[in-house]
């Protein structure tokens, strides 16, 4: 009977084995590659379930870390932590991941790089599981970076397309910027506490007697890393561009798992975050701002995947807000339900895109409800869950967060409610424009049909989870047994429910009549519409900064290099050598008399010197 340790390693390493196996052996046989990858994912899922029952039965396993390398006082350990938090995340990653990989078989059919795709998928799964299972900062950082690499590979999967290649780079670079902060944070913690291990730090961090400034610095830096991965303002710019990747990739990475890594990490190091109220407030507000801003932008986008991308940003903002308000349990709850319905939405969108031959502009879609009923049903469930309609899962998780805000910070509550309204509005817009009315582009809609079962089955699976996920209110209680929901009255809950309902109503009023384009909204919002459509000009700002500030710095460096290093330094050296050479060369004038004169004078001088001495 394999021990818990073995099962944990099975969970972690089967995707890695699959990835290596595919890259080495099965590149030419795409079906075998798919089977290997999906098989490994399912194995991991089964093992995760086993771990879940073990943990639920009261066992909390932290495998004693083995020292991997140690230099003086700097020690790197290798181990795994299997507790309630990590096991929940394991289930989400492996479960949703398996479903998405099965879906990919249908979506990626006919692509020339299927083997490579599944290898990367398995690699990503391995990296993500590594992040979840890491018991110390160094190990987590290693896997953190691996996740970044996997996402770069997957976003830029169709690398012959310049847009895709650029998007991959953008994602990686913006992540890296956040990771600089993360490294600084890790080092700060090590300098203060002398260890990287989470368990040790959780016990001793608050008792170290560090000043509030140091606590804030450490927490702030670590949050930078989370902000990069989870795409919070101002490091959010990579997420919409990442839609260049295949839709299942968007589903897996940018809905369910990778972007959630930031939230997961903050929950894992909650001892660090809660030690600094200043940073917590900052996190909450950044989350709130991100949520609101992303919702505003989503309202104006015309690409179905971009709307969903900004929606992800918005929901991540909610999660961060929860973390900032001290509710890591609520954040993880929302993370779980969000994984379900966002993956569902992305996969449904993928079905639509594939049916319309990779058309992604919603203003070319329409009336798909009749032609793709199953997909429509899935999308509807996803929309309602995302909007937070009772009794779907999203209602429960989102409202827990709103209750937190109600209790602590009214301003953030307002932000949350406005965002919820906007969420319903833009999702309704999407729903009505894409699925209702008549097809706007007759040519495209000619032969649209339902997707094959390999794609619809995962949709059903995720839809079911989206519906029941919230009922299993055991989830929050599972995470922390002492959890009790914030006290609330039914009136408050009704109020929270009313907000998205109003949003959907407004959406029906504007878009229910299946307009040809977004004219109504444009007129209604006026100049704001342009602002929101241009994503608040973040990319343009960054571009300007990089071009001018970095360009200026580069110019300074280049001038310094050209004049001082090359000019004075190298040029000086060569010039000096050349001058010395010239000076010495003048002696070789070819003039015999001069030579003789110098010789004679030299003899006389020598004579004087010898005689004088």
């Amino acid at each position: 009977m394999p021990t818990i340790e073995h099962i944990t390693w099975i969970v972690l390493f089967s995707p890695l084995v699959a990835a290596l196996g595919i890259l080495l052996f099965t590149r030419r046989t795409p079906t075998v590659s798919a089977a290997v990858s999906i098989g490994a994912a399912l194995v991991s899922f089964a093992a995760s379930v086993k771990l879940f029952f073990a943990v639920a039965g009261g066992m909390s396993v932290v495998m004693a870390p083995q020292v991997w390398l140690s230099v003086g006082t700097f020690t790197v350990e290798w181990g795994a932590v299997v507790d309630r938090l990590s096991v929940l995340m394991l289930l989400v990653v492996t479960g949703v991941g398996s479903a998405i990989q099965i879906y990919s078989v249908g979506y990626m059919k006919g692509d020339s790089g299927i083997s490579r795709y599944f290898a990367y998928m398995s690699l990503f799964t391995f990296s993500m599981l590594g992040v979840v299972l890491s018991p110390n900062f160094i190990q987590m950082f290693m896997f953190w970076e691996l996740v970044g690499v996997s996402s770069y590979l997957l976003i830029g999967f169709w690398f012959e397309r310049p847009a895709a290649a650029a998007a991959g780079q953008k994602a990686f670079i913006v992540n890296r910027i956040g990771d600089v902060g993360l490294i600084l944070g890790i080092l700060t913690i090590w300098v203060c506490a002398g260890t990287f291990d989470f368990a040790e730090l959780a016990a001793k961090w608050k008792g170290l007697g560090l000043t509030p400034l140091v606590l804030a610095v450490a927490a702030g830096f670590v949050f930078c890393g989370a902000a990069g991965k989870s795409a919070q303002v101002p490091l959010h710019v990579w997420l919409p561009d990442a839609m260049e990747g295949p839709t299942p990739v968007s589903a897996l990475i940018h809905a369910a798992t990778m972007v959630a890594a930031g939230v997961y990490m903050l929950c894992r190091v909650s001892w660090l975050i809660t030690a600094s109220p200043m940073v917590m407030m900052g996190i909450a507000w950044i989350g709130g701002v991100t949520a609101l801003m992303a919702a505003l932008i989503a309202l104006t986008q015309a690409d179905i995947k971009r709307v969903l991308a900004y929606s992800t940003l918005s929901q991540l903002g909610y999660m961060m807000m929860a973390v900032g308000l001290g509710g890591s349990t609520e954040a993880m709850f929302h993370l779980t339900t969000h994984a379900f319905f966002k993956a569902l939405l992305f996969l449904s969108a993928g079905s639509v895109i594939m049916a319309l031959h990779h058309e992604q502009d919603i203003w070319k879609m329409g009336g798909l409800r009749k032609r793709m009923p199953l997909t429509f049903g899935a999308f509807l469930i996803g929309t309602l869950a995302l909007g937070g309609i009772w009794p779907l899962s999203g209602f429960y998780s989102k409202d827990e967060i709103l209750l937190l805000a109600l209790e602590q910070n009214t301003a953030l509550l307002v932000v949350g409610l406005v965002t919820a309204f906007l969420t319903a509005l833009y999702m309704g817009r999407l729903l009505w424009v894409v699925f209702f009315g008549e097809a706007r582009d007759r040519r495209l809609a000619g032969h649209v049909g339902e997707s094959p079962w390999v794609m619809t089955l995962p949709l059903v699976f995720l839809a079911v989870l989206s519906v029941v996920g919230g009922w299993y209110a055991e989830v929050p209680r599972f995470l922390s047994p002492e959890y009790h929901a914030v006290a609330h009255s039914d009136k408050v809950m009704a109020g929270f429910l009313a907000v998205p309902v109003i949003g959907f109503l407004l959406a029906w009023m504007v878009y229910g009549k299946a307009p040809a384009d977004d004219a109504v909204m444009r007129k209604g919002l006026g100049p704001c519409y342009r602002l929101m459509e241009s994503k608040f000009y973040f990319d343009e700002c960054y571009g300007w900064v990089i071009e001018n500030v970095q360009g200026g710095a580069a110019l300074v460096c280049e001038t310094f290099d050209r004049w001082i290093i090359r000019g004075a330094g190298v040029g000086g050296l060569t010039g000096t050598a050349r001058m010395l050479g010239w000076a010495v060369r003048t002696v070789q004038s070819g003039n015999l008399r001069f030579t003789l004169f110098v010789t004679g004078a030299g003899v006389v001088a020598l004579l004087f010197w010898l005689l004088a001495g």
Partner: protein
Amino acid sequence: MPIRSANGRINERMTVVDSLFLFFSVALVLSAVMVIVSPHAVVSALYLTLVFIFTAGLYILLQAFFLAVLQILVYAGAIMVLFLFVIMLLDRRAPCRWWSRNLPALVGGPMVGLTFGVAVWATLKRTTWPEVAPETLFRGDLAQVMTPVFTRFLLPVEITGLLLLAATIGVVVLTRKEGQP
């Protein structure tokens, strides 16, 4: 050498040797100056021959008889003849106005030479050579000079022989015209 006169007092009068020395040295110096100053190369060569002859005279005064003869034979006889041969061969009739357009050398040359002479003279003034008894003054007979040559200094003799051989071959090679064997 001081001459003992009849009254026993040492008479410090110029001996023949001394006056010969004076004559030879002055003549030497004057001839050397004429070597430098003459516009014709032939004239300079002849004055140089005179320099060698007077040097030989000084050798005789120094009792270096063998060397004096050798000086005349080799220097005045062979080397100067060779010089004159070459000068005649080159056959340049025009007198060389060596003082025109030559100012740097005219200034620098004598300066160096003069400085050298003055330096040596000043040093000599300060040096006291150890006393030499009259008996130990060396007489340069043939046997006296050549015995060390063929015993102690035999190797240099052989090497000099080789050197002269090389010089001979070198001269032949250097003065070949194009196409000559």
